[in-house]
């Protein structure tokens, strides 16, 4: 299944090792690492939509919920933002958790009825229809914020952000105008799980977020590499002359 990211190998020791139990199994894990990572490292799969190992977790989708504590004083928390702590008792698949996840999926299905990823995930959890109202049947954005975070944290330019608040929240450029910060790299479109960010490439021009970017062709093979603008951004970051980047990876 597409959304499974089980290759949690990055064992970043955030704190000293502590003991806790997940689904009744005693486990050791570094303190403060997210419960999600701790669970996955130990083979407990938790579905997620807005988590990405290379990005800070912001807890948008709520699909990663787990139950912590002991009956009857248990609590539902986002595993992607909850820290691993000594003595925690965690349930990743209790009835309460599964019910919460089904609810989340029902809500998402109502928001984006045509998004394939959501349909698949919902079906995998036994959710085939939603009792909630759909505002826009064509809506595909699940507001996971992966695009916004990728642009800000990985690309490092922050050209887009969330605008407004629910129910009108959406991903947008500042003032819904052409974003001067955008370098046309397309990372947001690449990372989007539902492929909703419009993006075209035609005759050496890439259009994204309402802006046209001239693409640079490789000096050797002539294939397009990336927008000139993006290469200039790289040159600024590395301090190399921009021409260094005019040869594509294959020709180097």
């Amino acid at each position: 299944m597409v959304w499974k990211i089980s290759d949690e190998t990055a064992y970043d020791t955030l704190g000293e090792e502590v003991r806790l139990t997940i689904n009744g199994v005693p486990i050791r894990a570094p303190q403060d690492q997210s419960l999600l990572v701790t669970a996955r490292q130990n083979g407990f799969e938790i579905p997620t939509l807005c988590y990405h190992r290379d990005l800070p977790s912001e807890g948008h989708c709520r699909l990663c919920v787990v139950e912590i504590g002991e009956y009857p004083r248990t609590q539902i928390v986002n595993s992607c933002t909850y820290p691993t702590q000594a003595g925690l008792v965690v349930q990743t698949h209790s009835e309460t958790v599964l019910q919460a996840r089904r609810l989340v999926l029902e809500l998402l299905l109502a928001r984006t009825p045509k998004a394939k990823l959501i349909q698949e995930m919902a079906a995998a959890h036994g959710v085939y229809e939603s009792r909630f109202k759909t505002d826009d049947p064509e809506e595909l954005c699940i507001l996971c914020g992966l695009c916004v975070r990728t642009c800000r944290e990985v690309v490092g330019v922050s050209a887009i952000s969330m605008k407004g608040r629910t129910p009108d929240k959406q991903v947008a450029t500042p003032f819904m105008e052409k974003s001067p910060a955008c370098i046309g790299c397309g990372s947001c479109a690449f990372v989007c799980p539902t492929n909703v960010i419009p993006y075209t490439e035609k005759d050496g021009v890439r259009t994204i977020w309402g802006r046209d970017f001239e693409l640079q062709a490789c000096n050797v093979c002539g294939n397009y590499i990336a927008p000139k603008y993006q290469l200039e951004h790289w040159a600024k970051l590395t301090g190399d002359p921009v021409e260094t980047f005019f040869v594509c990876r294959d020709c180097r």
Partner: protein
Amino acid sequence: MDLPRLETILSRYEGEPWDLIPVLQDIQDSYSYLPKDELQVVSERLNVPLTQIYSVATFFKMFSLIPKGKHQIKVCTGTTCHLKGSHRVAESLSHRLGVEVGYTTKDMQFSLDTVGCLGSCAQAPVMMVDDKYYGRTTVDKVPKILKLYK
């Protein structure tokens, strides 16, 4: 752009990213909205990306990206006021001012908005004009209140 005016506001703060909301509040108070050019300067000074400022500015109801009227009317549509029929007060205001909720009259005198709980539920239904609260408002009282500002 009215740079001295903005500078006065900015000079009250240390220029750290966490000053963003107070700075925006001061700009909103002084300009009655958040002008784009000013936000650009704020972004550079506080070292906060414009995207984040835009996110904050569009999230909170107290901020507006378009100029607000001289007087700002806020009708509470919180739970208590809602139950006490505040939507009728809002309707009446909208009728009398000839402007829809969320907009400003053509003469830029009044902006009409609905807001969440104003914290005076005992006086429901509550409305505010600028900084002044009007409790137990009724449709009858609307013209009298408006008259005070005309």
